């Protein structure tokens, strides 16, 4: 009687669809990690380390590798434009390029890295829909990316065990939401697990890919398992290789190769104190309630709502930098060799991670973990040289947040419109309107700054975090690989053209006036606002071919307008294409040649902080009217 009954919703477009709840945590992390490219100019803040750095395959190594290979070269910039796939380049060494007239001949390049388990990440660019990139782990476990929306997999031999529900052997996965148009940089991360053999050489576990993220979208919902092979060919095995067909560019190829080595702990003594403390110096003077030996790091050895410490020996297999990640429900500290390594700033938020790292020599070290057990959750993971994130604490010492069942806001024939909170560039945006256009184009619009935040293809949003119980996070979750734009307000007041832009708008001190939106007969909104005399109408629709988002801007000057600029595309770079149009933000998306603008008025401007924009001055006398249109494609 007390259970919440599942109700039939009138909401014609809201359906119940099973989705993996954990997806969104990973997605959020992956989106952050997917933003690789040249560092932002003038960014000097120390970035928090949440993972050890990857090993890069540098320009010199690649230069060696391509020495005698035809059709391969190193360049500083590359454009793969138009349907004929014409390739133009600029000098430099940061990009590895394969460009050829022989469109269907594959060309393989060994990257020289012999490996077992590994994580890989790279940026790649395909010139046309028929171009292909294959990443071959151990030389023959292949992940194939094409210019269409399909990923394929190939194995060296027939499966030792047949494909089963628990361990399916995928041959291909469709991922239309993750697709990017040719000529744009795409980002791939994957985790490869090498096959396992027993002492007698029998295959005990096939090779598999455990996670694939393409442009921030988690692709496989189950591990991709490869067919087996003989052990002799696997130890040490052939090196990592890439095979390309047609016009393909790569950059930022990096990996982490893993071994079997792990940290281990021994001689663990636990000590339980009465009471619970926000600092640990008090403990040093107290008599404990009890103490004893234990073989695992678990708060169960202690008492409820009291302090517990663990002391013991930490065996470090290999010297190097070790990164620790601590999550705990209550103040917690890790000390190694009596030096504090990481603490969680006394929080009881057992989901929030805290990171810090330490250089450790090989051999034995003393460690101490102190935990004020408020909420029965203590999770300590670490990453080390050749060691992926591994848990030190007991698995059951982690308390899990209650999972919320997904609730899809399905868009079929009517557009979806929903205001709510939305994650953008790692922060919560509280003024978002999410719009789902029937046909599968979706965008998130900041209705406080009038800027496009994000766009994605496929399904609309998951609203479970808004309308389940109290809806604590109020977050709309996009159901597709998200293209994040800069989110900079497009209307700027700049005394000088190159002045640095205003990034934020305070809701209660907004420079925008006469703010509204209208719903048109197609059910989609058109936004109105005025900014220092310029009255603007801002309309987003699906482009005629359905591939991108078309923006139509109408400006009329209600008064004399001076110093006002409209930022079309903006980001780290704005590159004009020879065939017309622009590539924005280090080739994250295309911006078609705007229609309705006098070509001389449009300009590319680098602001004082290094950011670049395609800009249009709106200055003019009262009564001046202007209307222009452009499409963003990705």
């Amino acid at each position: 009687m007390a259970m919440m009954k599942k109700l039939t919703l009138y909401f014609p477009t809201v359906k119940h669809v099973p989705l993996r709840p954990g997806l969104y945590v990973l997605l959020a992390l992956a989106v952050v990690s997917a933003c690789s490219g040249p560092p932002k100019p003038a960014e000097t803040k120390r970035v928090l380390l949440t993972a050890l750095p990857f090993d890069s395959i540098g320009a010199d190594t690649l230069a060696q590798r391509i020495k005698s290979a035809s059709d391969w070269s190193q360049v500083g910039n590359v454009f793969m434009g138009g349907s004929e796939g014409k390739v133009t380049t600029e000098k430099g060494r940061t990009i590895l390029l394969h460009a050829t007239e022989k469109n269907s001949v594959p060309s393989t390049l060994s990257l020289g890295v012999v490996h077992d388990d590994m994580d890989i990440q790279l940026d790649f660019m395909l010139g046309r829909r028929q171009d292909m990139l294959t990443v071959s782990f151990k030389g023959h476990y292949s992940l194939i990316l094409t210019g269409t929306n399909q990923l394929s997999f190939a194995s060296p031999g027939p499966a030792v065990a047949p494909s089963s529900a628990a361990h399916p052997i995928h041959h291909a996965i469709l991922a239309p939401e993750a697709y990017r148009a040719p000529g744009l940089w795409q980002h791939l991360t994957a985790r490869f697990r090498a096959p396992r053999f027993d002492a007698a050489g029998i295959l005990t576990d096939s090779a598999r890919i455990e996670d694939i993220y393409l442009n921030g979208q988690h692709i496989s919902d189950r591990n991709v398992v490869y067919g087996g092979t003989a052990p002799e060919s696997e130890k040490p095995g052939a090196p990592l290789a890439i095979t390309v067909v047609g016009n393909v560019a790569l950059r930022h190829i990096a990996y982490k190769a893993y071994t079997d080595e792990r940290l281990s702990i021994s001689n663990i003594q636990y000590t339980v104190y009465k009471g619970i403390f926000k600092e640990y110096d008090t403990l040093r003077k107290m008599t404990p309630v009890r103490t004893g030996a234990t073989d695992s790091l678990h708060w169960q050895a202690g008492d409820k709502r009291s302090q517990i410490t663990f002391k013991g020996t930490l065996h470090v297999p290999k010297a190097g930098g070790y990164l620790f990640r601590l999550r705990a429900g209550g103040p917690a500290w890790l000390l190694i060799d009596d030096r504090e390594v990481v603490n969680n700033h006394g929080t009881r938020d057992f989901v929030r991670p805290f990171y810090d790292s330490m250089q450790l020599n090989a051999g034995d070290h003393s460690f101490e973990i102190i935990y004020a057990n408020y909420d029965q959750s203590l999770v300590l993971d670490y990453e080390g040289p050749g060691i992926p994130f591994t848990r030190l604490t007991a698995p059951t010492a982690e308390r899990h947040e209650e999972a919320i069942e997904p609730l899809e806001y399905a868009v079929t024939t009517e557009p979806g419109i929903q205001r709510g909170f939305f994650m953008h560039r790692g922060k919560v945006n509280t003024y978002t309107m999410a719009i789902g256009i029937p046909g599968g184009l979706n965008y998130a619009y900041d209705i406080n700054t009038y800027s496009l935040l994000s766009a994605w293809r496929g399904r609309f949003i998951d609203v479970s975090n808004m309308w389940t119980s109290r809806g604590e996070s109020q977050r709309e979750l996009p159901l597709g690989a998200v293209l994040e734009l800069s989110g900079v307000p497009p209307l700027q007041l700049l005394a000088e053209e190159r002045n640095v832009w205003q990034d934020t708008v305070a809701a209660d001190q907004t420079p925008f006036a006469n703010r509204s939106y209208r719903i048109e007969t197609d059910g989609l909104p058109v936004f109105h606002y005025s900014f220092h005399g310029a009255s603007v109408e801002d309309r987003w629709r699906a482009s005629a071919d359905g591939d991108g988002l078309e923006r139509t801007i109408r400006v009329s000057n209600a008064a004399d307008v001076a110093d006002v600029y409209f930022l079309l595309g903006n980001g780290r770079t704005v590159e004009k294409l020879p065939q017309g149009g622009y590539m924005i933000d280090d080739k994250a998306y295309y911006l078609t040649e705007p229609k309705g603008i006098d070509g001389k008025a449009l300009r590319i401007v680098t602001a004082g902080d290094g950011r670049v924009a395609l800009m249009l001055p709106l200055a003019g006398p009262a009564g001046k009217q202007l209307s222009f249109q452009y499409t963003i494609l990705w």
Partner: protein
Amino acid sequence: MMNTRSFYFVLILLLAAFAANSQTQPVPPIVPKERVFYSVTDVPLGPVLLEVGGMAFMPDGRLAVCTRRGEIWLIEDPYQKKSKTPKFVRFAHGLHEPLGLAYSNGSLYVNQRAELTKITDTNKDDKADLFETVASWPLSGNYHEYAYGPLFLPNGDMLVTLNLSWVGRGESLSKWRGWMMRVTPDGKVIPHAAGMRSPAGFGLNDAGDVFFAENQGDWIPSGKITHIEAGDFATHPASLNWSDEEGSPLKGLHRSQFPDSIGSLHEFGKTIPHFKEPSVIFPHTLMGISTSDIVSVPDGFGPFKGQLLVGDQGHSKVMRAYLEKVNGKYQGACFPFLEGFSSGILRLVWGTDHSLFVGMTSRGWAATGQAEYGLQRVDWKGKPAFEIQEMKATPNGFTLVFTKPVNRKQAEDVKLYSITGFTYAYHKKYGSPVIDQKTCPVLKAEVAEDGLSVRLYVGGLREGYVHQLNVTGLKAATNEPLLHDVAYYTLNAIPQGTDADKKVMESMAQHANHHATASDAKGGCGAVPAKNPTTMPASWKKVDIEIVIGTKPGLKFDKELFEVPEGSRVRLIFSNNDDMLHNLLITKKGQGEVVGRAALELGLDGASLGYIPNTDDLLFTTCLLQPETSQSIYFIAPKAGDYPYICSYPGHFLAMKGVMRVTPKK
């Protein structure tokens, strides 16, 4: 006693109510005697998911309702005059949790989380097409930052309120959280008043004065309604983060002036300029647990014109408040009025035919009404009940005005009346127990000539205290029983008397028996310590089985079933990780609901006992726990069988319960 005819009448009512409700949940606790005078009808919603956030009538007679999921629906013929099923039109959607709706001059106005929006259907096709931003609110992303209103003032300006953020306690993380703001039609925002926590409902009385409703929480010992004027500070200090901002009427009033534990709100308030104490306190659990909307009673709804009706979300009921001015400030009494609504009440609005529409939702905050959401219509059947119509303060007691002449002989007997004065602690902690409770002797009861009022002469009254009045067994001259026999008067000020008034009291006091009983405000763990065993018995060598139970949002335990073997030594740890007070009681087989209802009957002593009744049906219990605290109890599992456990905090036990299954010894 009801005669046969009334019995069948009520039976039919109950059956009709059951039939209407049967698509959702079992029948909520209706008080049949109230339904003799007021009918409560479900407005059939069909497939529409109507979690009511705001309601307003349109000029064409349709009822506009905005929902927590961001929609606005127009309901045609909600009176069901033309057909059994009203027509629903989806007028707008996509808003962000709008919690208030008003109509003005051709447009609907909503206050949603981020914005106060004006919504217009310019081409009259019953679909809103123009959404204009009137004002934008700074937000931190905290889930508790709700926005309410707007309420239109006669001059065309609007009032809105902004809820505090919640970070384990109420805080004002974004600008103007905890404030009431005035917004002009062209969007100018002026800070109006501060000191609020969860000001979910506010309305005007007939004189055009604004009252807002507040919920128990940190700094707020009990729900209340307060008359609020420009420049007032309504007691919660978190909002003072912004007191020095431009336009603030409270410059110079800072949080640092409020120690964590203050004690007497009434005394402290005298030292703080602009401090506005509650006008009517609604004692927590006795008169609701989460006061929501406020409306003023018009003609045609019983003999209460001009009084205020106050909704309650947690207890699914509507209560009544009578207000008067003493020394120029509002104070008065609250009375029970109508119980048994189908879900948690958030909004009240009057229909054109004097019917009251009650808009409800309980997602996230379970209510005694078990439905997830609902819309009901209340109509007065035309006959007034025998009720205390007004309770007025006099220099030496109270005058009670009744709706019908009283039975004179009964009403003159002072033993009919009992009055208890009590107060609450004003402190940073969440809520407060009743403290400093004392009986006030009733020295004389003077019945007026027309029998319509009784003047009570009462000793021991204290300014700044709430006074509970019980009138047990009083009948009208026609022998009709009093429908509701309890009232709570917030006696902020005792009216000035003359010397003659003082002499009257002195002579009466000489002939009276004084007895003051102070109640022990200790505990919160029930009356029998043996049933609350918080330390491991010395005879136990160890605990055989440990059970940990926490809470889930929506007033639930996170475990609704656990098993222990018969005879095992059990340590049960109850961890209250919610943001409200809870306890855990294990009862005899099948007696969960019985014990839960017994807790409701504890009255004023309930809080000090932790709402734990002293009954044989209770086996073991924890104390009533503050948010984010836990307690262990130790007991030996009884004979095999299913033993219910509940949280007995008033209003919780219907949803917050489970079963301890004792398995037979092997």
